[in-house]
């Protein structure tokens, strides 16, 4: 029984401990300004990770989101001047949904494994992003609309934070309370059984890819709002960061078991580490080093606990 609790909540424990440690070491951490900063930085990865949680729960993942991120910034970069921030956002969402559906169709109709399929579309979509902008940046300095996404507020809360809360609440609700969420878990648990039991497996899988694409577009919007350019080269390695956060958050790679809030906590954890190390004056590469080490250590501990449980059984 302890093992089950540990698996679900250990990330909270790790996060709490780390947070406490940093709070002690760097008092600046606890200022409101800083905390808001942390949450805002985390938003981009977190929102995409919410979608990825579903993909990994279903037993697959989406490697193409880094390229979709770049494509989003490009679409926004080019479309905002003509259609305004919200109009361009709408278009980006449509584009994202289409690309997500394409991913889904490739996996379901062409029967290609998700790893290989999204590996290929990762290459294609990045190419499309670069083609679209001709490799040049599409700058938006002049446009103030789009800055709302970073600097604006929704009901008194900074927009990125509000959006993150909204997305995760919706994701959690979908996961726990909708048939869709159940089907995602079913597919991840035993694909063959899910197929035989008559649930619409293909439709669900396509839905999952549309979901990861949609959350990525939202992340991309936040990013565009921060860097104020549309750039076909951003987001390299983004997919790995998002997958890292999702797995660290307790979603099992073998499928069937997802942890939506865990994903959020894990993203915050990783951001806190970056933030704390920043405040300590540690340069960027050391932060990446730390991220990698924490990832491994945390999962090694988790692995050990599972091993011990098996030994005792």
């Amino acid at each position: 029984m302890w093992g089950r609790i540990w698996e679900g909540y250990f990330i909270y424990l790790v996060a709490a401990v780390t947070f406490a440690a940093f709070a002690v070491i760097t008092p600046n951490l606890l200022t409101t300004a800083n905390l808001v900063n942390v949450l805002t930085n985390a938003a981009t990865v977190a929102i995409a990770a919410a979608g990825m949680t579903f993909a990994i729960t279903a037993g697959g993942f989406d490697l193409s989101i880094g390229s979709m991120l770049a494509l989003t910034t490009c679409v926004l970069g080019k479309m905002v001047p003509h259609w305004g921030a919200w109009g361009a956002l709408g278009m980006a969402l449509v584009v994202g949904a289409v690309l997500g559906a394409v991913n889904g169709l490739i996996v379901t109709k062409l029967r290609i494994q998700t790893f290989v399929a999204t590996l290929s579309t990762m290459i294609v979509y990045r190419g499309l992003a670069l083609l679209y902008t001709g490799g040049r940046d599409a700058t938006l300095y002049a446009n103030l609309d789009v800055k709302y996404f970073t600097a604006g507020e929704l009901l008194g809360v900074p927009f990125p934070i509000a959006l993150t809360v909204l997305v995760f609440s919706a994701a959690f609700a979908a996961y726990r309370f909708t048939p869709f969420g159940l089907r995602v878990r079913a597919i991840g648990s035993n694909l063959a059984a899910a197929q035989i039991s008559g649930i619409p497996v293909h439709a669900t899988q396509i839905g999952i890819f549309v979901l990861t694409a949609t959350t990525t577009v939202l992340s991309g919007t936040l990013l565009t709002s921060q860097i104020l350019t549309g750039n076909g080269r951003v987001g390299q390695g983004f997919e790995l960061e998002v997958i890292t956060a999702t797995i660290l958050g307790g979603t099992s790679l073998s499928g069937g078991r997802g942890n939506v809030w865990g994903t959020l906590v894990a993203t915050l954890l990783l951001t806190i580490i970056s933030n704390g190390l920043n405040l300590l004056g540690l340069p960027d590469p050391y932060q990446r080093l730390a991220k990698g080490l924490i990832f491994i250590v945390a999962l090694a501990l988790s692995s050990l606990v599972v091993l011990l449980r098996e030994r005792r059984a």
Partner: protein
Amino acid sequence: MLWPRVSLRERGILIALAVFWAVCATVNPLFRNPSTYENILRESSFVGVTAVGMTYCIISGDFDLSVGSMLALLGIACVAMVGHTGLLLAFVCVTLLGATCGTLNGFLVAMLRIPAFIATLGMYYVYRALAYIVTNGAPVQFQEDWFTEVGSGNVVGIPTPFLFLVVLALLATYVLRRTPFGRHVLAIGNSRRASEISGIRIPRVRMAIFAVVGAFTGVAAVLQSSRMWSANSGMKPGYEFDVIAAVVLGGTSLAGGRGSVANTVLAAMFFASLNTAMNMFHVESYMQRVVIGVLLLFAFSLTGIRAYLGEQLRLRREAREALAGASGQSQPAP
């Protein structure tokens, strides 16, 4: 002797490569020029060498996402030391260093039982960060001819890196098919439990495989940094995916249990040919990515269809064998 009796079906990549070359040669005169092929062979080696090692890894049911970062770290080590130690010693040291990194990966996966995807994902960050820290973000360079010749030069008309690739591939094929170690690699990929019962020391073999991947990455790092006469922490982004794509395109299934080093090499050559052809046809560089991606999808959907057909064939053969083998001495009903 080394060539097992494989059906044409399993050499699909060879056919694809031959057809591709034939088509290009017909359409573009540059493709009838030997220097083009020289270029292709050279370019295919930088990914190909690591892919040969990765083939072992994937056959045994594991995975190494950190090879790109290892490449950067090892490339930096190579460039940094070659001026002081000379080429041969640098080669040996970098390969050993690569093997050490690989062993570390293997330790995490085989001893601590962290899933390979996760462990190597973590090390992906760690190695690249180390590379950045060690160089302070700046590239390191070494321009002496005797060094750059390795990556850029030829031996009896064949690009040196490609010679490395061929020798290593032959060695790897031999070990895989004709040594106990190779059999153990295959066995682990087929069935962990049966391997344990057969007395195979699974953690050791897995660690050795990761060490092999690291060592091969080391060789690739020397070749690559020699070609570029420099190395930096950001070199070859996406390298790990190039390597894995070559292995998978060559027909080795991610599920493990079987695979072919030769096919991996051919797949690497195919990618290099593709890139070269697109350059020659003046395909816009951004369009090139789209083409590669689409082609990968096409190739994998073929594999998907082939797997589906293979499954049908298997079902039929099962039925046939069952009938034949079961009552081999059945007599007519009394």
